[in-house]
C-alpha cells in the first residue's frame, strides 16, 4: 500500500471561528479526492492540515495509522505538493528550478532525467531559459514537471488547472488518471470537472457557522 491518509472528526478553528467540524476523510491507493467550497470555506486551511503544516484543533489525522505529526518525515518523503504559487523561482532556469526541487525532495536527478520530465510537459528546448522569460502557463508547467521527475505516491495539488491551456488540462487529467492507476493518490482543490468521474470523491466544505 502506498497511500493511507485518514482523517477522523477533523475540525478547524481559525481566529475564533469554526471553519469545519467533524470531517471524515480516507485517501488510499488509486483515490482522487477533490475538495470544493466557496472562498473562505477553509479549503486552504484543510490542505495545510493535510500537508502536516497545521495541527487540527480537534480530531485525528493519521498516515499509515500513525499520527501525522509524528510521521512527518515519512509523510514528506511520500508527498509531492504543488501550491497556489507554483514554487518556481522566476530568476532561475527551468533546469535549475527542477534540480533544486529534486534535491529538496532528497532525490538525485540527472540532467537527462530533468530534460525528459521537461519534455513531458512540453518544455523541451526551454531548459536553460530563466523562468521569467516564460509565460505564466509555462511557469506552471515547470512546476508540473515535478510530477514526472519525482516518484511520489501522494500528490496534493492546489488549483492545478489554473493558467494552463486546454492541451495542458487534458494532459494533466490523463496524468492524474495514470498516477492513480499505478497506485498513487491525488488530493486537489479545483473547479474543474473531470471527464472520468467515477474515481473522484468530493468533499464540499460548507459555510460553517
Amino acid at each position: 500500500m502506498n497511500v493511507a491518509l485518514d482523517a477522523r472528526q477533523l475540525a478547524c478553528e481559525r481566529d475564533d471561528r469554526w471553519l469545519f467540524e467533524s470531517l471524515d476523510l480516507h485517501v488510499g491507493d488509486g483515490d482522487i479526492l477533490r475538495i470544493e467550497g466557496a472562498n473562505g470555506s477553509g479549503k486552504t486551511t484543510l490542505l495545510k492540515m493535510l500537508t502536516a503544516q497545521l495541527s487540527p484543533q480537534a480530531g485525528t489525522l493519521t498516515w499509515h495509522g500513525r499520527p501525522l505529526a509524528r510521521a512527518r518525515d515519512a509523510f514528506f518523503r511520500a508527498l509531492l505538493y504543488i501550491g497556489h504559487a507554483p514554487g518556481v523561482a522566476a530568476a532561475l532556469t527551468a533546469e535549475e528550478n527542477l534540480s533544486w526541487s529534486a534535491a529538496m525532495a532528497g532525490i538525485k536527478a540527472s540532467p537527462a532525467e530533468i530534460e525528459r520530465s521537461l519534455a513531458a510537459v512540453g518544455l523541451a528546448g526551454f531548459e536553460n531559459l530563466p523562468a521569467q522569460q516564460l509565460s505564466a502557463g509555462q511557469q506552471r508547467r515547470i512546476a508540473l514537471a515535478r510530477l514526472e521527475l519525482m516518484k511520489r505516491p501522494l500528490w496534493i495539488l492546489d488549483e492545478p488547472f489554473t493558467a494552463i491551456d486546454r492541451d495542458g488540462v487534458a494532459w494533466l487529467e490523463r496524468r492524474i488518471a495514470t498516477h492513480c492507476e499505478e497506485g498513487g493518490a491525488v488530493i486537489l482543490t479545483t473547479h474543474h470537472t473531470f471527464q472520468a468521474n467515477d474515481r473522484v470523491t468530493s468533499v464540499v466544505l460548507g459555510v460553517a457557522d
Partner: protein
Amino acid sequence: MWTFIHKLGSPKWCYTLCGRLQPGFWAAAALLLCVGSVWALGYSPRDYQMGDSYRIIYVHVPSAILAQSIFIAMAVASAVLLVWKIKVADMAARVMAPFGAAMTFLALFSGSLWGVPTWGTWWTWDARLTSMLIQLFLYLGVIALRGAFGSADQGAKAVAVLTLVGVVNIPIIKYSVVWWNTLHQPATFTLTQPPAMVASMWMPLLVMVLGFYCFFIALTLYRLRNEILRRESRTRWVQELAD
C-alpha cells in the same frame, strides 16, 4: 499539574478563576500601595547624601523590577502557547505587554528625573538606563508586531517567537551595555544601589514593590477576563453572560 494546565486552557474555567482571584489582589494592591506611599513619602528618613530626592527610588525601583518581570512573564506565556497551544496564555501575554511598556517608561522617566539633582543632567548613558531604554524598544516591537498581523492566531505565534528571542537577548544586552559602560566611563555611582540602606528606608521600598506586583497581577487578571470575553464572544457562555 497536567489537569491544572489543561483546565487553564479552557477559557471559561480561566475566566471564573480570574474572577475569583481578582478582588484579593486589588485589595492587597490598594492596601500595600497606600501604606507604602505614606511610609515612603512621609516617614522614611531623609538620605544624608541625596536629601529628599532619593524618594524617587520608591517609584523607580518597583517599576524597573516590574519592567523586567513582565517581560519574563510574557516569555513564559509565549512558551506555553508554542508548546501546549493554549490560547489563554497568548491572551495573557497580549494583556501584559502595554503595562510592561508603561512600567519601562516609568522607570526611565523617574530615573531621568532623579538624574537631574544627582548628575545635573536629564539623561546620562548609565548602564541601567541604557538597557532600560533598549528594553522599551523591545516592548514596542512586540506590540507593533502584534498590531501588524491581521490574523489573531498567526500574530500570537509570531509575537511568541519574538518574545522568546527577546528574553534570550535581554541578559546579553545588559551584559554588553555594562561592558560598554565601563569601557567609556569608569563607574561613578549607580542608580539603584545607594550605599547600604537602613531598614526604615528599604522596608517601604519592599512594600511598594509588593504593591506594584499585586497591582500588576490584579490588572492582568481583570484585563485577561476582558480579553477572554472578546476572543470568545461567539460562544454561548459569553453571550449568556451578557444578559
